[in-house]
């Protein structure tokens, strides 16, 4: 695995372990040897039941959490060996985030929230790009509103625009539709999809919802900290069917702890 290979993927994990607890009795393997690559310009969903390690995997990939063992790559940079300062810088330059709770600043307007990452970096927004991003979230005259005056779906679209504004290499989305009704959720997912189709944004989304996962180009299934399968060009039906099979398998054969 360490043989010199040029990394063409946007993000990758190579035999990544995340282990909590020291003794045999307290040992919990949140990730147990996960190897996965995320191609550029693609929308990949990570699916699995709660406790499968999908959020942990996303956090490790994004440098928000550290792996116990294994390699983590963002583009051609290996991030598990970087220091905290360098990781922070890399996140600022190359990654965007969308979380279930939107995490918008309540005292700022939608427009201010969107441009804040640029202001922090000391950059002026490219007016064309800003116009495009703002237009694509479809907020129109509500841009001057505070988050509390916007619906959940609108807030999440603002959060996505904020992630998009710095032109990140990868956008990580953790259950972005978890708090939304199905119509608002669809709007957010369509926006994610459009960013991939129209300007080759790379998106990695964690979800437990088969319908949300069906918007992706590819779905990776996680169970008990392991990659247990994947589906390309998913539909809600194929995802659901695969989920059921995995549940069945888990009941028959409990995972082997090492």
């Amino acid at each position: 695995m360490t043989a010199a290979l040029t990394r063409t993927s946007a993000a990758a994990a190579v035999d990544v372990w995340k282990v909590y607890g020291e003794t045999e009795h307290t040992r919990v393997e949140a990730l147990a040897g996960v190897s996965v690559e995320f191609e550029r310009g693609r929308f990949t969903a990570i699916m699995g039941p709660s406790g499968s390690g999908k959020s942990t995997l996303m956090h490790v990939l994004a440098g928000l959490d550290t792996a116990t063992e294994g390699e983590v790559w963002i583009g051609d940079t290996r991030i598990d060996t970087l220091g905290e300062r360098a990781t922070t810088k890399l996140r600022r330059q190359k990654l965007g985030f969308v979380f279930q709770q939107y995490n918008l600043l309540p005292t700022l307007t939608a427009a201010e929230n969107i441009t804040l990452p640029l202001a922090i970096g000391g950059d002026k927004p490219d007016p064309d790009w800003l116009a495009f991003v703002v237009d694509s979230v479809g907020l129109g005259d509500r841009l001057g509103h505070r988050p509390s005056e916007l619906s959940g779906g609108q807030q999440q679209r603002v959060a996505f625009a904020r992630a998009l504004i710095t032109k990140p290499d990868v956008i990580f989305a953790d259950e972005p539709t978890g708090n939304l009704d199905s119509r608002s959720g669809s709007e957010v997912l369509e926006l994610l999809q459009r960013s991939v189709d129209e300007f080759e944004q790379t998106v990695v989304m964690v979800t437990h919802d088969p319908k949300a996962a069906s918007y992706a180009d590819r779905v990776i299934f996680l169970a008990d900290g392991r990659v247990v399968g994947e589906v390309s060009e998913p539909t809600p039906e194929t995802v659901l069917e695969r989920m059921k099979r995995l549940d069945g398998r888990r009941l028959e054969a409990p995972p082997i702890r090492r």
Partner: protein
Amino acid sequence: MMLFADHWHGGPWWGLWLAWVVLFWGAVFFLIFRIGRRRGPWGPWREERSGQSVLAERYARGEISEEEYRQRLSVLDAAANRPRNENTR
């Protein structure tokens, strides 16, 4: 008396005065520079500052929620108010 005053107008005393002025302004500019950059070459003050600004940036970028931001900020504040040798693990 006249001899003494003459020393102020030239000679070694003037040189000393010049050195003092240069040192004084050097110190002022150094301090302004240090505060402006929000980080100096030493001291715990620098670490706390950068810890808080990193946290603020992560909050602004949506990496952490408001609740998480407040929690972590209070942890940093608590650590800053403790003697230095205690907060190094």
